């Protein structure tokens, strides 16, 4: 019982810590929504009046407690830019971004295993190939996006160069609009993840029981499935959780670049207009997703480590 509760408590504490970081980051940005919302030349008095109207004139600690109290009640507050509920803005864009991240992960995960397995095995025997992954992973999403757009849209004319969702539709109705954004996110993630997986693969394939199995002439696929894969499950889920965090970060760039209406582009413009309730809501959502992913990977590690299993 107590053991089952521990990850929950730890998750809650981490989330609370994340809320402090998120709030401090928005508070430290120079300028505020009231200053950006008034027209140029407004007097200090007018700025103060608007700040008061927006409920942003209290002390920072007060704003923080009000905000977290609201979060616990499920109230994300209202936007400082257009006075609409933040929850509406987030829910409106959540499906688009969830689809983008989900597809990217679905595409990147098998690629990680295959590439990681190949590079890991290669490293164990000859010590090469990893350089390809490291180099590939170092290419930022924005470059991949530009390259993919130039090739698939510019040269081959297969898909549109921007991903405008027709109003009122879900992205899965328009798979052609997802190709470039998903590719731009999945490719660097797959290489990055494969780099991490290859390390685990290299460790595993040099274990005595694998070396022994190979020496006894068992088929490669059987060794991979029975002797290697179980050892990879825990590191692989952790890599997936970390990759999900990276993917969330990449949406800010990729969505803006392709005009894709998701949470990433919402975050970018909310930061620019100092719409702190929106910034905080999106950032907390991202933090919660990453923490949940890490918690799941911990649980997987606890439950599946073959070394701790009685054969």
């Amino acid at each position, binding site marked *: 019982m107590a053991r089952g509760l521990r990850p929950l408590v730890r998750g809650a504490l981490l989330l609370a810590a994340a809320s402090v970081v998120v709030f401090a980051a928005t508070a430290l940005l120079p300028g505020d929504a009231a200053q950006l919302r008034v027209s140029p030349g407004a007097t200090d008095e007018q700025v103060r009046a608007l700040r008061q109207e927006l409920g942003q004139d209290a002390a920072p600690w007060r704003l923080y407690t009000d905000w977290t109290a609201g979060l616990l009640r499920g109230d994300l507050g209202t936007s400082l830019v257009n006075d609409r509920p933040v929850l509406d803005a987030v829910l409106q864009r959540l499906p688009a971004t969830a689809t983008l991240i989900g597809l990217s992960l679905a595409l990147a995960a098998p690629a990680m295993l295959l590439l990681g397995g190949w590079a890991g095995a290669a490293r164990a025997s000859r010590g090469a190939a990893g350089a390809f992954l490291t180099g590939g992973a170092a290419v930022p999403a924005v470059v991949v996006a530009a390259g993919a757009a130039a090739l698939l849209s510019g040269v081959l004319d297969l898909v549109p160069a921007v991903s405008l969702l027709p*109003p009122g539709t879900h992205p899965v109705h328009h798979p052609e609009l997802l190709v470039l954004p998903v590719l731009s996110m999945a490719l660097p993630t797959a290489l990055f993840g494969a780099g991490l997986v290859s390390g685990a693969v290299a460790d595993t394939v040099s274990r005595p029981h694998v070396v022994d199995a190979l020496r006894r002439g068992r088929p490669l696929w059987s060794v991979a499935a029975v002797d290697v894969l179980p050892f990879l499950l825990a590191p692989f889920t952790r890599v997936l959780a970390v990759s999900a965090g990276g993917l969330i970060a990449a949406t800010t760039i990729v969505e803006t670049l392709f005009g894709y209406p998701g949470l990433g582009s919402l975050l970018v413009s909310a930061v620019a207009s100092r719409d702190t309730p929106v910034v905080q809501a999106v950032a907390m959502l991202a933090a919660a997703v990453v923490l949940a992913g890490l918690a799941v990977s911990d649980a997987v590690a606890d439950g599946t480590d073959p070394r701790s299993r009685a054969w």
Partner: protein
Amino acid sequence: MRRQALLAGLCAITLATASGCAGGTDSGDGAAQAPATLRYAAVGAPAATTADPHGRVGNESDYLRFSMLYDVLTVIDEQGTVQPRLAEAWEPEGDDLTHWHITLRQDAVFSDGAPVTADDVLFSLRRIQGKGAENNGRLSMFDLESSTVAGEHELELVTLQPYAEVGAALASLTFVVPEGSDDITEPVAGSGPFVLETADDTTAVLTRNDQWWGPGGGVERLEITAMPDAAARASAVASGQADVAGSVAPATAEQYAESDEVEVVTRPGGVGYPLVMDTTAEPFDDPEVREAVKIALDRDALVETVFLGYGQTGADVLSASEPFAPDVDPVVRDVERARELLEEAGHGDGVSLTLHATNSYPGMEETAVLVSEQLAEAGIDVEVEVGPPDTYWTEVWNVESFYINSLGGNGFVDFARMALLPDGPINETGWDDEEWTEDFHTALATADQDERYSLLGDLQRRIAEEGGYVVWGSGDGIDLTASGVTGLPTGPGFHRLRIEEVEVSG
């Protein structure tokens, strides 16, 4: 392979649950039967999308939507002159030009069926004035407490001082909403050429308002999409996902100049990045230094580099597209004379300045760099400091003594009220000339249009010669359209918002 399989799988799932799967890359499915639709990719950050037409409107996409959903009192035409819209006539009562009788059209109807009355108009004007802090004090020339409703379609508007340009003051942004719409966080009924069908923070779908009093023509359906990235807007048109891309960069226009599928439409005088010199701060408090800066610039090179030729050189005249703008000689570069002026001003050893700029708009930073190179040839040592766009308008603009501003299509009278009167809220050049101020008020108290225009033109000329603005040129506003789009507005200022008669064929 895997990706396609995945997408196909998703399609299959979707097909089973919902409407189905769009096959090709063309999003205008079934366009043959569909009503004529104009898809406009406009400048806008979706997170800043607002439903309130009277407060802070940061997005061009919102302005476009408002001007199609709501009627305004007057509009500016292609030549920059005021034309009636919801207001049929505006006439002064008495000689002092402080009391104005406004006559409204009688056939305007809100989308909920209620007629548009003088009560709605006065309510809307007061609401706009009440949000003055957010909208640049747009109607601050009026005393709306003393203004009254004089009949179902008649108003008496009172101005604080004689104000001959009431027609212009009521132009373009006086969106009329039903009386009692105090809180506009969701769209309210309008009486404009279109009605709202659906909207989220990125895209609004509008359909033709059959009840609208105005002329027919134009499309049946309008989709306005907010897109912050200029290159993405252009790509949207190039790939057939939009019919119009608002405000793209000159480099993009050049890229499509030879294209058959994409057309470049220019709006002269759309943007300008004047240098601002604070005439109350060292060394610009000396008129000779200001003069030296003005003649040391190579304006042709600036227009060529910053706007890639999509623009005109300026001779420091603000709002040069006004019908009353003076005919002034071009400013010819004279580096030697600039050096002499500096010497006479006691700066024989040269001057060191810091020029502030930002990259809010394409070309601002390039302007600063090129200006710095050009001024160096006249012995003015300029260090360029590029600040972040988020804080530029609060920390540099109207604060520093030498920086690059961005002006687009403001009317001269409105701009002068804000920036050239000693008590103007954005008097960034510290312009305080008693005679000039007096003449400005005289102009606004002059009923005769020709006489008034000549006075206003002269005021513009004096600022050009002596003021702190270096209007070295103006760039065209550049829109891209798909072929088949006709009638996109190209006039000055807010003329660009009048897209109700744009046609799409093919």
